[in-house]
């Protein structure tokens, strides 16, 4: 009996150390990736000017011009479009699934929306290229149809599963008492959703939005097919331009590792990391403020 007890205790102790070790290992991997990207990226500035990199729009590595503002703007703009189009839509679907859908419909919708996540980027890009671009060119009378709008729409669809599944999970994990109390007080279902459930689920919804933003800003293959990949500063929503990721993937494989050009691509990847870090901190502090009120 005493033996069993001590072995239970030992397992308890060991498991804790195992978990901790895994956390340390993951942190080490993450740190080494961040370090790798950062060191490669920052060595760009041995050759290129920091000011030009962040404020210039002239990207011409062959003549030593490394202005990456176009790409930064492109990434932020496509992500914003994707969140504006896909965020509310996804959240509405999540609310529907968590609160309104009959059990049968819900049990069908969950795997269905998850399936969006399983469609590979290349397929999204292909549909974007053959369907959306054509449609945008015809409706906006632009010359080509490639640009921020096309990639924003493709990304909006791609972030749907992230927004839906995480928001729905967080809505469902709310204690039933919230809903019951609100309904008992005579509130309609919509009032309950709007005034009680959504505010209570805010942290989860924010996580969903953060992950969706991360997915959108980091997406490569699909964006690269529909953005047009011109190094020109975006003139409109429907003129070809580039994002950080699309330019990285276009040029990474064809530039010598260790050259300033290649390092500049790593710097762009490092910027992506920093942007998302910033976004996350912003959203975190916003949600904390929301809670304290």
């Amino acid at each position, binding site marked *: 009996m005493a033996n069993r007890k001590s072995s239970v205790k030992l397992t308890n102790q060991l498991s804790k*150390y195992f978990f901790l070790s895994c956390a340390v290992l993951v942190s080490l991997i993450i740190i080494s990736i961040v370090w790798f990207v950062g060191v490669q990226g920052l060595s760009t500035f041995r050759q290129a000017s920091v000011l030009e990199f962040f404020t210039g729009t002239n990207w011409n590595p062959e003549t030593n011009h490394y202005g990456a503002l176009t790409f930064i703007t492109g990434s932020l703009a496509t992500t914003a479009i994707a969140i504006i189009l896909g965020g509310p839509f996804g959240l509405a679907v999540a609310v529907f699934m968590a609160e309104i859908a009959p059990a049968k419909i819900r049990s069908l919708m969950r795997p269905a929306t998850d399936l969006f996540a399983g469609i590979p980027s290349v397929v999204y890009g292909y549909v974007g290229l053959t369907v959306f671009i054509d449609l945008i060119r015809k409706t906006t009378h632009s010359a080509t149809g490639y640009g921020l709008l096309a990639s924003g729409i493709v990304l909006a669809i791609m972030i749907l599963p992230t927004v839906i599944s995480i928001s729905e999970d967080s809505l469902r994990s709310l204690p039933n008492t919230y809903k019951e109390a609100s309904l008992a007080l005579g509130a309609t279902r919509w009032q309950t959703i709007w005034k009680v459930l959504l505010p209570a689920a805010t942290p989860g919804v924010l996580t969903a939005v953060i992950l969706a933003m991360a997915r959108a800003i980091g997406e490569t293959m699909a964006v690269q097919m529909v953005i047009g990949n011109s190094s020109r500063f975006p003139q409109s929503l429907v003129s070809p331009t580039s994002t950080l990721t699309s330019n990285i993937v276009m040029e990474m*494989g*064809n530039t010598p590792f260790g050259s300033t050009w290649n390092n500049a691509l790593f710097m762009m990847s490092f910027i992506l990391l920093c942007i998302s870090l910033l976004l996350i901190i912003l959203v975190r502090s916003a949600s904390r403020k929301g809670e304290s009120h």
Partner: protein
Amino acid sequence: MFKVKLRIIVLVTSLIALLVLAGCGQTAAPNKKTISAAGATSLQPLVKAAADEFMAKNIEVQVNISGSGSMTGLNNVANGSIDIGNSDVEVTPELQDKGLVDHQVCIAPFLIIVNKDVTVDDLTKAQLADVFTGKITNWKDVGGEDQKISIIGRAASSGTRMTFRNIVLDGAEFTTDAIAQDSTGNLLTGIKQTPGSIGYIDAAYLNDTIKALKYNGVAYSVDNVVNGSYPIYAYEHMYTKGEPVGIVKEFIDYILSDEFQNNFVEKNGFIPINK
């Protein structure tokens, strides 16, 4: 107490790390039965065909190939990680002193293509240069209808683009008012569906959804490339670190053999080196 904890943590962490690496580490010994080749995407179908044939003939050899860009191939072969680097560009100055040996395996001709609604059939070198540097932006300036010219080209670092720039533009800068696609497939889709678009591809990819232009009045054909009247082409290279030996040499010899050159090279879109 804290020290003991720390020791356990370090121990377990390194154990996990070891376990993860062990799976790879124990098998990392160089295997003479495997050839690794990587590099230019455009050359990849040809190398794949060669690998299939070569593996069929040599039961014990495994050829692993990948296409991730010329420079990825060159970098990896220069630092000795892989056996063969496939490239559609010459070796860069950075890698010149790494002892890379060039094997020219075939010739890649290029075509100027346009959307089917473009009425122009022929452009001179000077006209093309003006179009791609952005001096001419409307088809009516080169004898066509009043329609905006939309350029759909390749990535700034692609070998196809460099070749095109050296031969047609004499090294002048491309305009930035152009769409770029990173593969022939996406470029073809773009040209097919965009009215007034112009671009350039490897000759083999011409299909009936797009139209090829004459260059200085000369239409592309294998004969015109061989007799020198159609000048837009480049050599495709396979680089090894030092002279190749063993199965790597056999593989490259096989690619250069008449059997492979005559039966597979044209089928995969290139002109045999022996022509």
